[in-house]
């Protein structure tokens, strides 16, 4: 590992990166005072880190290359772990449930609000997971559906005073309709083309919201959206925050339940078959048009729900919340968590939203770290944090095969 050849490699890598980062890391031109700031410390920092990291990098790649053989044992290992966790599953779930239920009464309002955001990403992730993880349709315009939900509530509330509870199904409905509208033209497109066209649809939606002032109030957005209430009771901010938190919890539970049921059904099987091989799935009697449109619109439903919730939570929305990066963040949640895996997406969403909060002191590095994390995950753990486990069936060997 630390022989001369390796040292030389790392040394050269280190030199290369020092060269590479020299202008941007070291020189800073102040165009107002016309002075140049030389930050030589950065150069030393890059040199040393690159030297060390290049060892780690090669070691990790090496390990990955060898990993192919060890895989078989991995499966056996996983099975035993699963068997063990099963017996703790129920008490574990109850424990988590209790914790979740009492948390907002002890935590600060800020924490509760952050948790609610995390839960919203759980729902968004699970919704997009239907499209990307199950249907295999790379969708980069998911934020548009989210926006439709939010604007549905905001506008209906502004013009007609419609309540949160009425807006919730309407937001989902409009979102699903937009899903169908977007789905139709892109039916023939595959892979990368689909990705860029969905991205285009997402951006068009945002640009319309930004520029159609008469309809959406443009970049200034809509303020004073009502928080959800029950039977006309006006809640103060702390109570309302907790109430929204519980709405989000309820929606997460409902979403998990629904997605799980869909996944293990005829519809879910068709989605997965389509993801695996479009031509073969057609040859096996699956109507691709219907299956695709269904995936788009069902995925959109959840974005619509969360959009309404988002508008109610922040009481103010504007188009800046629905950029392409929002779509990408949701995609990252799905991919980092584990495509197609419900617990994976849940964990992915929590990691993605809570970790930056915990690391607030270094929050400016957050996107930098996310970016590189995506790369590293794809190379070393492409299946995500929690990989999907398939449902298995047991049959009696002899007899009538029940």
């Amino acid at each position, binding site marked *: 590992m630390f022989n001369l050849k390796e040292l030389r490699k790392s040394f050269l890598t280190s030199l*290369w*990166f020092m*060269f*590479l*980062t020299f*202008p*941007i*890391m070291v*020189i*800073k*031109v102040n*165009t107002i005072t*016309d002075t*140049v700031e030389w930050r030589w410390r*950065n150069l030393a920092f890059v040199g040393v880190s690159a030297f060390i990291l290049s060892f780690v990098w090669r070691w990790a*790649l090496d390990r*990955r290359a060898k990993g192919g053989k060890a895989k078989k044992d991995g499966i056996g290992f996983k099975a035993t772990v699963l068997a063990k966790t099963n017996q703790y599953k129920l008490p574990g779930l109850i424990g988590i449930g209790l914790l979740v239920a009492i948390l907002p009464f002890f935590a600060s309002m800020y924490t509760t609000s952050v948790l609610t955001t995390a839960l919203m990403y759980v729902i968004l992730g699970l919704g997009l997971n239907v499209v990307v993880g199950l249907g295999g349709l*790379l969708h980069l315009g998911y934020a548009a559906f989210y926006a439709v939900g939010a604007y549905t509530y905001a506008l209906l509330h502004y013009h007609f005073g419609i309540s949160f509870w009425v807006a919730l199904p309407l937001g989902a409905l409009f979102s699903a309709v937009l899903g169908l509208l977007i789905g139709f*033209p892109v039916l*023939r*497109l595959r*892979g*990368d*083309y689909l*990705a*860029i*066209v969905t*991205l*285009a*649809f997402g*951006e*068009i939606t945002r*640009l*319309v919201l*930004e*520029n159609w002032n008469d309809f959406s109030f443009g970049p200034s957005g809509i303020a004073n959206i009502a928080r959800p209430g029950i039977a006309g009771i006006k809640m103060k901010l702390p109570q309302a925050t907790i109430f929204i938190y519980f709405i989000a919890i309820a929606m997460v539970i409902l979403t998990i339940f629904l997605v799980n049921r869909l996944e293990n059904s005829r519809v879910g099987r068709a989605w997965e078959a389509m993801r695996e091989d479009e*031509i073969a799935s057609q040859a096996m009697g699956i109507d691709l048009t219907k299956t695709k449109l269904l995936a788009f619109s069902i995925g959109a439903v959840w974005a619509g729900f969360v959009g309404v919730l988002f508008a109610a939570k922040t009481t103010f929305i504007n188009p800046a919340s629905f950029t*392409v990066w929002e779509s*990408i963040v949701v*995609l*990252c949640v799905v*991919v980092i968590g584990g495509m197609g895996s419900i617990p994976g997406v849940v964990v992915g969403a929590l990691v993605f939203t809570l970790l930056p909060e915990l690391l607030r002191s270094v929050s*400016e*590095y957050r*996107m*930098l770290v*996310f*970016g*590189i*994390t*995506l*790369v590293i995950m*794809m*190379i070393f753990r*492409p299946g995500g944090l929690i990989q999907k486990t398939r449902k298995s069936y047991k049959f009696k060997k002899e007899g009538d095969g029940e």
Partner: protein
Amino acid sequence: MKLDFFFQLLMSGLTRGSIYALIALGYTMVYGIVKLINFAHGEIYMIGAFTALIVSGVLSMYGMNPVFIFLIAITAAIIYSAAYGVTLEKIAYAPLRKAPRLSALISAIGMSMFLQNYVLLAQTSDFLPFPELLPEFGFLDPVKFIISTNQFLILVTTTVVMVLLTFFIKFSRTGKAMRATSQDRDMAQLVGININKVISITFVIGSALAAIGGVLISSHIGQINFYIGFIAGIKAFVAAVLGGIGSIPGAVLGSFVLGITESFGTGYISSDYEDAFAFVILIVILIFKPSGLLGRKVSEKV
């Protein structure tokens, strides 16, 4: 006066188209060879512009001739963008060559986030003024109201670069190897083409072109920040898809179609929707011609 306006829009459309073409070529070449959307390509372009800005900032302290500074800055930008492009490929894409397409795309998105924030943190989030280094060309005075020096330079440079690139790909040994690799990578490997080298060269050329585009447009517009790459990158990508991704003439055609549409769209319809035009024509063209204007129709072998 109406005609002037028309010609101004036409020139501005051609200028945009040229810049898109310089960036779109990188997308399309990389896609042709490795079948990957290099989502971080726009960032390479941005890094080129930043490098040029930094280099010219330092050199102008020493009171050098501005034209010289410009030449050195653009050379530095080309070298650095190419270096970043190759490094990007080695780190984020090479380990994923056998992985599903989605993995590589996400890795590319990750790199894009990383590079944007790298420049943001190491430099600044503010817009920086890009120095005016080139003198006005005297011979353009009579048509100054239609075409500026920078626009002229952009058009000429782009044309020269396109011609050179065409010759390189058609006739050089490496160009032939690149074409072979894009046709059938396994076969190319069998006949002894060094795939790694071809991929690296593709990234070098694509990044260098993006750097040229980055410097030219920055000097035309006069300011840059860390985010310019993302928008330009997406539009150039739209141009590449429009023309049929993987096709070099397609990328150029798509870029000019996009540039001119945008220019006339903002001029005659509404400037509010400047960015929407790109997306709308993309969707319209892909619906009627799913593989782009000049793209080969890829029917999967059954």
